[in-house]
C-alpha cells in the first residue's frame, strides 16, 4: 500500500480547489440532511402509525360529523377492543394567530387507546377527574409558558360560546408523544362531555355529533377485516362511514400539505447531481495530475491496486470530510431548526433515518467520483504514464 501521507498530500496539492469542493459537499450535505429530515417528519406519521388502530369517519367527508350513537354500535363488532370520540374543536388562545389543534375526546379512554403517550407533568387521574380538565402537548405548553394547574382561555371558532365568552380549560397534564407517531406535541385534548353539555344547555353553538372515532383493534384482528365490518354495519345508513387504517388517514394530511415531499425530493436530487459532478470534476483533475506519480509508483514495483487505492482513498477522504462536516452541521442546528419549523413539521429531527441515507450517499458520491480515476490509475502502464506531460 502507498503511504498515507502520499494520499493526503496529493489530495491537498491544490488547496483552494479541494477546499471549494469540500465546501460544496458540506453545503450540499447540510441541505440534504435538512430536506430529508422534513420528509421524514412528514412521513413518520404515516409510516409509524399503529397497525392496531382504525379511524372511522363519515363516508361523505371529514367535515361531516357522525352520530354519537355510533360508538356503541361500533363496539359490538368483533375485533373492536375500544373506541374513542375525536372532534376537531378549532380554537385559538387569545388571538387568532395562536391557533393550535384541540380535540374533544373520551377522557377516560385515551390512556388505553394511545398508550404510548406519556405525561411529563400531571396525571391521567387528574385529567379524568374534572370536566374542565385538559391535556396539552409539551411544545405548546412550552410556547405559552403553561403548566399544570393553569386555567387557559380558548376562543372556539367552530363551537363558539353564545355569550361571546371564551372556553376555560384547566391543565391537568402535559404530555410527550414522541413515542406516538400519530400525535404531535402541539395539541390539546379535553372532555367531549364538557363540549356536549355546553351545547345541550344552549350555551354554545356548532354542529352536533362526532368528528371521527379512533378504534383500537383486539389482538389478532386486521385493519382491513374489522374496517370492512364497520363499514358494512352502516351501509344502509342512516349515515355511511368509512374506516381507514390510521397510517392512511394520516397520509391524507401529508398530501394536504401539497407536494412538499415531491418538491423536497426534486430539490434534493438537483443538489445531489450538482455535487456529484463537482466532485467528479475535482477527482478527474486530481487523477490526471497524479498520472506521473502513478507511473513512478508502478515503476518502483507498486501494483495496480496500490494505484487504485491512491486515488479512491482521496475521493473517500474528500467526501468524508466535506459531507461529514455538512452532516455534523445539520446535527448542530437540530435544536434551532425544531424551534423554527417544529410546528409545521412535528418530530423534526436529524435522526438515523436522515443520517443513514446521508452517509450512504456520501460514500456513493465518493465512489462515483473516485472510481473513474482509480480504475484509470490501475490500468495505466508505466510507459503511458511517464510519456504523459505532467
Amino acid at each position: 500500500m502507498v503511504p498515507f501521507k502520499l494520499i493526503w498530500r496529493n489530495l491537498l496539492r491544490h488547496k483552494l480547489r479541494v477546499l471549494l469542493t469540500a465546501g460544496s459537499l458540506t453545503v450540499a450535505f447540510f441541505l440534504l440532511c435538512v430536506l430529508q429530515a422534513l420528509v421524514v417528519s412528514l412521513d413518520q406519521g404515516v409510516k409509524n402509525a399503529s397497525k392496531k388502530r382504525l379511524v372511522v369517519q363519515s363516508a361523505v367527508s371529514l367535515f361531516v360529523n357522525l352520530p354519537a350513537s355510533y360508538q356503541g354500535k361500533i363496539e359490538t363488532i368483533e375485533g373492536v377492543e375500544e373506541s374513542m370520540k375525536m372532534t376537531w374543536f378549532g380554537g385559538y388562545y387569545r388571538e387568532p394567530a395562536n391557533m393550535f389543534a384541540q380535540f374533544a375526546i373520551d377522557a377516560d379512554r385515551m390512556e388505553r387507546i394511545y398508550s404510548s403517550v406519556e405525561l411529563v407533568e400531571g396525571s391521567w387521574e387528574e385529567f379524568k377527574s374534572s370536566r374542565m380538565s385538559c391535556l396539552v402537548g409539551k411544545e405548546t405548553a412550552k410556547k405559552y409558558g403553561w403548566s399544570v394547574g393553569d386555567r387557559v382561555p380558548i376562543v372556539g371558532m367552530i363551537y363558539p360560546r353564545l355569550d361571546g365568552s371564551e372556553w376555560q380549560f384547566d391543565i391537568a397534564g402535559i404530555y410527550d408523544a414522541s413515542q406516538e407517531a400519530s400525535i404531535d406535541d402541539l395539541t390539546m385534548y379535553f372532555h367531549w362531555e364538557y363540549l356536549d353539555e355546553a351545547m345541550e344547555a344552549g350555551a354554545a353553538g356548532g354542529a352536533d355529533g362526532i368528528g371521527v372515532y379512533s378504534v383500537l383493534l383486539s389482538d389478532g384482528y386486521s385493519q382491513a377485516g374489522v374496517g370492512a365490518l364497520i363499514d358494512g354495519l352502516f351501509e344502509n345508513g342512516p349515515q355511511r362511514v368509512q374506516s381507514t387504517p390510521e397510517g392512511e388517514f394520516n397520509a391524507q394530511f401529508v398530501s394536504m400539505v401539497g407536494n412538499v415531499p415531491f418538491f423536497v425530493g426534486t430539490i434534493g436530487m438537483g443538489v445531489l447531481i450538482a455535487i456529484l459532478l463537482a466532485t467528479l470534476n475535482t477527482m478527474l483533475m486530481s487523477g490526471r495530475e497524479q498520472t506521473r506519480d502513478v507511473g513512478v509508483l508502478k515503476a518502483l514495483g507498486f501494483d495496480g491496486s496500490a494505484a487504485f487505492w491512491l486515488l479512491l482513498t482521496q475521493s473517500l477522504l474528500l467526501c468524508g470530510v466535506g459531507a461529514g462536516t455538512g452532516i455534523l452541521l445539520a446535527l448542530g442546528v437540530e435544536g434551532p431548526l425544531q424551534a423554527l419549523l417544529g410546528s409545521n413539521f412535528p418530530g423534526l429531527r436529524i435522526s438515523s433515518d436522515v443520517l443513514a441515507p446521508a452517509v450512504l450517499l456520501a460514500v456513493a458520491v465518493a465512489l462515483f467520483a473516485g472510481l473513474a480515476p482509480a480504475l484509470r490509475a490501475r490500468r495505466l502502464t508505466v510507459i503511458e504514464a511517464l510519456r504523459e506531460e505532467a
Partner: protein
Amino acid sequence: MQESQHGVELRGVSRIYTRGGEGVKVFDDVDLSVNAGAFCALMGPSGSGKSTLLNLVGGLDRPDSGDVVVGDTFLSDLSESALAEWRSENVGFVFQGFNLVPVLTAFENVELPLLLTGLSKAERKEHAMHALELVDMGDRAKHRPGQLSGGQEQRVAIARAIASDPGVILADEPTGDLDFESACQVLDLMGRLHTELGKTILMVTHDPRAAERAERVIHLDKGRISESSEGTESADDGFREVKPREGEGA
C-alpha cells in the same frame, strides 16, 4: 550492498508497434548479452528503440516474441503483479525527467521503494539515509523536489533507484535535462555505482562524453544492434554486429 549477479540477455526479441494498421518494427529478432556488473551505454538516433529496450529489460514492456532474461529470471514467465514485485527487488530506474514525487520530501522519495520490502521503519530510515548520503544529498533529506535543482533532483532519483539495492540500474538519458556540471556529477555517480557497488548498468545517452564513461557502447539503429566496446573514440567505425555469444550473459 552486494555485487550484481544480474546479467541481461535478449534472445531473438522482436517488438512491433502497430500504428494505424501498420506495424512498426522497433526490434526484429534481436540478440544482446550484457555481463553481470557491466556498465553499458546505449546510443542511437531518436526513435531507434533505446527506451523500448530499457523498458523490455525493466519489465515495463513485453516483447512480441523472444525472451528477456535478467539474472536467471525469464521475464515472460512472470505475471503482471509478479513482474511488479520482481522489479521492486531487482531493478532501479533513473529517468530523464527525474520523476520524483513532488509532494514527498527527498527522504520520503527514497524511502518509497523500501516500503515494498519487509524492512522496519528504522531500517528503512537507515537505508534511505545511506543512499542519500551516497549521492551527497544527506543534508537535503527534508527538501521537496521543488526546492532542489535539477542536478540535485537527479541525484535523489539515483538514491531512490539504489535504495533497495537492486542488481540492475536502468537510466534513460539521466543527464538529458541537466547542465554540464550537474551532468558530470550524475555521470560520476553512475560510474561509482558500477565500480564501487558493482551494479549492472544500462544507460541511454545522446552525449558521447557520457558514453565514454561506459565500458561498452551499444548502438541501436533501424532495429539492429551494433557496438563499439571501448567508449566512442570513433563515431563511425569499430561497430560490429552483435551475434549471440556463448559465455556472455548471466
